[in-house]
């Protein structure tokens, strides 16, 4: 079975965001595998280990994404592919077109990815890709079982649980709860250095120029307004509670 994991490198979720010259600054920032993509990598490893096959981790992004792909290799993925090119538009339309162009030329049984990225949060690329590859998909899954060319997935829909069966090849996007991602082991890190790592540019893909142009554009970026200093209540607990309710009702008028 050929399992493809689409992966994005994102800011560590503990990072604070700062803006300089209209851009989010990357100075001194720690980068990680998008946490939801990490569930996808782990799930791929478990499926491969139980059923045999190979795991290819694929990323569209800047050179630094190499690090995230290496981490996935150290976790247990078999091969990595980085598609990096300054001509690629940055929106979900362009990225999904690139991925579709690459995966469309491979023999794919299963595609896994996170259900959104914690930086841009668009939640589009995985599902767009499924549609472009003409595969069924199940989004936001918390459980996945594969047998006899079919997959059964449990999906989280605003807290409700849906069990969905699809025929393979198919694409799944991972939600928290799917598994517990492993840490790369030291032997894993050593082995990762010898695993195949392919870097591609647009010249290696069969894609038209029109597919590279983003369909949306960022016009500006800002930080949320600072919250004003709040009020610590004091006195007996029962008095604090009375005062809080009174404030919410009469001052803030929210109840």
């Amino acid at each position, binding site marked *: 079975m050929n399992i493809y994991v689409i992966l994005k490198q994102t800011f560590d979720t503990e990072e604070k965001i700062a803006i300089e010259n209209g851009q989010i600054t990357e100075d001194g920032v720690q980068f990680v595998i998008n946490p939801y993509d990490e569930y996808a990598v782990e799930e791929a490893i478990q499926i491969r280990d139980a059923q045999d096959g190979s795991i290819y981790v694929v990323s569209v992004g800047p050179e630094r994404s190499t690090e995230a792909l290496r981490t996935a290799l150290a976790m247990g993925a078999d091969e990595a592919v980085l598609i990096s090119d300054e001509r690629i538009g940055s929106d979900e339309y362009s990225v999904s077109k690139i991925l579709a162009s690459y995966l469309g030329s491979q023999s794919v049984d299963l595609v896994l990815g996170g259900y959104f990225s914690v930086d841009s949060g*668009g939640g589009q690329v995985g599902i767009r890709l499924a549609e472009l590859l003409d595969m069924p998909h199940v989004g936001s899954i918390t459980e996945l079982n594969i047998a006899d060319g079919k997959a059964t997935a449990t999906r989280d829909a*605003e807290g409700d649980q849906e069990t969905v069966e699809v025929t393979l090849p198919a694409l799944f996007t991972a939600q928290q709860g799917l598994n517990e991602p492993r840490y790369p082991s030291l032997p894993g890190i050593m082995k990762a250095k010898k695993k195949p790592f392919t870097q591609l540019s647009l010249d290696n893909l069969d894609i038209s120029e029109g597919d590279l142009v983003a369909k949306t554009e960022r016009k500006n970026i800002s930080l*949320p307004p600072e919250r004003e200093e*709040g009020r610590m209540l004091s006195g007996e607990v029962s008095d604090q509670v009375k005062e809080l309710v009174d404030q919410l009702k009469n001052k803030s008028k929210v109840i």
Partner: protein
Amino acid sequence: MSKTILVVAEQRDGKLRQVTYEAIQAAKLSSSEGDLIHLAVLGSDLGGLQDTLSSLDVEKVFVVDDTDLENYNPEAYSNALSQVLDSENPEGIVFGHTAVGRDLAPVISAKLNAGQISDVTAIDSSVEGTLYTRPIYAGKAFEQKTFQSVPWVLTVRPNNIESDSAQGTPEVEHVSYQKPSSIRTVIQEVVRKTSGKLDLTEAKVVVAGGRGVKSAEGFKPLEELADVLGGAVGASRGACDAGYCDYSLQIGQTGKVVTPEIYIACGISGAIQHVAGMSQSKIIVAINKDSEAPIFKIADYGIVGDIFEVIPLLTEEFRKVVATN
């Protein structure tokens, strides 16, 4: 020339969800004079919606009512919606950023080669065109985007775009569902865990628990408080990781982003990842034993104390106020 914007409605238990009215408003804000706003409703056994649909403030309503559409199935739903899109050719399509909208919108965007802006919280018209505001990094920053081509697709976050109560007299057209030649997706079972409960992202009041709640049992007082205020219960990642509650309740950078009118953080320390998911709430109340907890830095009101003492008192006090409202 006038253009059409299609709103994809969402209904649950025979009612339109509030986010649908917000999506109609988003369509209005994205339109120019003379443009038409149309609406599509997909589902099964939609007869009960008749009165609601025929008084919506839109020009036309398409109803696709078929047993195949009883539960959300991406293939069946995109097929049904494509039928409407083929005849309508809208310039814009608006979804709620809900479980269905988040899943269906990218399918449609890919089909139409359309740009999509997801999770929009505000819409402004400027000389540069219509600007769509959306949170990035789970609300640690905001970006404003525009579309560079048509058609375009939007998903709007529940609870952020204020809808009006305008009524209209749309033409209602029933579209018969044409089964696709093959369907690869089968919905085997749907377990409604949240039936009757308010969705976190739509709730006006959120009562959230952290590690300080100490156990699954410890969420009971929080649920009571939420019930009194007609709100929903949420949690920090710490509480989910500790197994006190389901991950579907998690608020934060990995998890849900909520913007209620009142956010009551109970026994939550205020890690940056959690704050990212709730800092845009209108009023934040924090209750924590530790007076040094970072959550107090962003709270409008802070109570230092044991949540198991404070919450029941708070529930009683709110109950009195709610009774007199």
